[in-house]
């Protein structure tokens, strides 16, 4: 294990680039793969390294000291890739996994719609069978990196006559195909990391189905499980102004590190940060030993979002006036503001805090579910979003 750590350390020190340009990111990811450090736990057959969670953890620990330019690959690495490995045919795995690991192809997740977010199973995008192929019409929204993506995992309705969970199918689609239009959306930070995606008679071959026709919901649950673990387990310490270590440094810079209130709040933040990091490590070790996290990923996801909120409060205590006004040349001011402004997304993207609590209650604790209005009703008859389905 020490050998692996030394290798990771040396490689990162020599190879992490300074910018996040797409071309740089792609070159970096390919180099990472060449060095045997991409897809650490993924099967060697499809380009992974076939190693264990222990090596993954070492990599994560070492990588936390850097800002890897790999955020555009996160949906592919964290969600689409693992789901294809779980459910894909040998042909799909052979086609998609290696280019994904090498950063040659970028992926996005096409689930949410204007009317269907938390209740994603009520989505209205239709895929209609036409001979050997499928024809897709509809709209997605909040699709992260769709403007850069080469492929997407699309959840669409293939049968409106059965209850909503049963009539869905997951497809792997080419984002450059005719019939796909991507429109960037500006978020509250002023950047445009997500998009609206429109489908107008997009044609898909039969081989585009991931898993079973009509099996879109279990496929989506599989992917959302990966998503929660991936979001909850994502740590970026080096340039994260809300990480405990950096806030402690900020407190020293502003001379607030002896302030008794600041000390206590920093200590609380440290404890919450450690609890989450170690919980994530434990989930990985358990997965390694053969019990996958399942719905417990929701604990990591929820705790991660709460940690961000707590850190925003502590940042305010420490930075005070510097958190709300700074010299235009002061990059630290911009970074802290960006982190404060991104914080709400942790509690919404990938399933809201409210939904995570419900999942923990229902699926982990086995508490009785709320009465549901729509489980056994054919989709056609449901009211969704702020509209009625077509």
């Amino acid at each position: 294990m020490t050998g692996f750590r030394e290798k990771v350390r040396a490689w990162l020190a020599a190879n992490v680039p300074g910018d996040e340009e797409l071309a740089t990111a792609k070159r970096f990811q390919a180099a990472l793969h060449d060095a045997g450090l991409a897809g650490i736990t993924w099967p060697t057959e499809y380009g992974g390294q076939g190693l264990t969670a222990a090596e993954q953890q070492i990599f994560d620990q070492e990588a936390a000291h850097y800002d890897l330019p790999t955020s555009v690959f996160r949906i592919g690495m964290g969600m689409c890739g693992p789901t294809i490995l779980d459910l894909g045919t040998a042909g799909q795995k052979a086609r998609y996994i290696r280019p994904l690991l090498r950063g040659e192809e970028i992926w996005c997740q096409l689930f949410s719609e204007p009317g269907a977010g938390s209740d994603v199973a009520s989505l209205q995008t239709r895929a209609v069978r036409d001979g050997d192929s499928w024809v897709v019409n509809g709209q997605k929204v909040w699709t992260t990196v769709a403007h850069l993506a080469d492929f997407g995992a699309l959840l669409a309705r293939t049968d409106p006559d059965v209850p909503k969970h049963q009539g869905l199918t997951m497809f792997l689609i080419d984002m450059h195909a005719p019939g796909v239009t991507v429109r960037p959306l500006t978020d509250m930070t002023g950047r445009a990391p997500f998009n609206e995606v429109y489908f107008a008679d997009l044609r898909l071959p039969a081989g585009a189905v991931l898993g079973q026709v009509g099996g879109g919901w279990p496929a989506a649950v599989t992917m959302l499980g990966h998503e929660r673990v991936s979001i909850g387990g994502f740590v970026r310490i080096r340039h994260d102004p809300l990480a405990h270590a950096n806030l402690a440094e900020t407190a020293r810079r502003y001379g607030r590190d002896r302030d008794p209130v600041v000390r206590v709040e920093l200590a609380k933040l440290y404890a919450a940060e450690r609890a989450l990091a170690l919980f994530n490590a434990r989930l990985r070790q358990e997965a390694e030993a053969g019990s996958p996290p399942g719905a417990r990923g929701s604990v990591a996801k929820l705790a991660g979002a709460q940690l961000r909120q707590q850190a925003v409060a502590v940042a305010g205590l420490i930075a005070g006036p510097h958190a709300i006004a700074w010299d235009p040349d002061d990059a630290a001011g911009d970074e802290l503001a960006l982190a404060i402004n991104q914080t709400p997304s942790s509690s919404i993207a990938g399933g809201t805090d409210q939904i995570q609590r419900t999942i923990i209650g229902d699926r982990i604790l086995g508490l009785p579910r709320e009465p549901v209005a729509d489980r056994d009703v054919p989709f056609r008859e449901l009211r969704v979003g702020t509209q009625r389905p077509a």
Partner: protein
Amino acid sequence: MQLVLDDEQRQLRSAVRDLLADHNDVRSVVDGDARYDRGLWRRMAELGLTGLVVPEELGGAGAGHVERCVVLEELGRALAAVPFLASAVLAADALTALGDTEVLPALAAGEQVGAVALSGVTATERDGGWVLDGCAPFVLSGDVAEVFVVHTPAGWFVTAEGHRRALTTLDPTRGQAKLEFSAAPARRLEHADPGAVLERVRDLAAVALAAEQVGGIAKVLDTIVGYAKVRVQFGRAIGSYQAVKHACAELYSTSERAGSLLRYAAWAADHDPDALPLAAATAQAFTGPAYFRAAATGLQLHGGIGYTWEHDAHLYYKRAKSSELLFGTPAEQWARLADRLERVP
């Protein structure tokens, strides 16, 4: 003690609400190049709002703090991008308390925008006059002000001579600047107890900010309750889920209590000066963090749409965080309240 608005005050509220419905253009500041909403500011001046509490003989309307808080609540509700807090509150209150008659009429008329620097600057007597030196790092609306009221260890001064650098701000609706003085000529505003003026200015500002915050909370509450009634997920309006309903109920409770603290503090400002320090500290310490919680909750309950630039939820989030830290961190506000409690006989 009067905790309910009278008819005239209610009329004022609806007049201001109408004005804002027609003329508030926050997006010209958020999405455009304007540093503040000049059109709205001009109309507020025409209605006498910029000099609301300034005595009539100095060109103001001679109204009370309760009335001014009514206006501030509406401004906070609408997120109006005007330098009211800096000019019509901080600067006007300081100049009023100092008995100034030269600058105040122009501020009251809305012809000039004032801003206040409370720390970082020193004054020296030179050639029979006074000059200012030093740097005030965070001056609210200092980016647009034409006249600066400056507090120094040697008392209060007024000047138009500072060098300003506009800062980047978390809240895109309200600017700040760093002000630098280097042997800048200034006029001294004589007062027997400059420290008492500072305390009064701070107390009134705390109340005024709380009024804006209370208005913001009310607006966040209205917006999310409206949305929770029409947004359907899982076949039901999201407001029917306890997780959402209880969050809205908490918001309502916060709104009512913060509003009550505010009404009392505003009343004390007009009628019971001895009670003001404690009432102001209580209102601000309670309301500052409450507004940010409310704004974050409102955004959260909108889901993805709340995270977009186009939706106003983020403007409330940023205004609330910024206001929470504007006159000191929450820890400092609680400490101020604790100090005030120890002084109560």
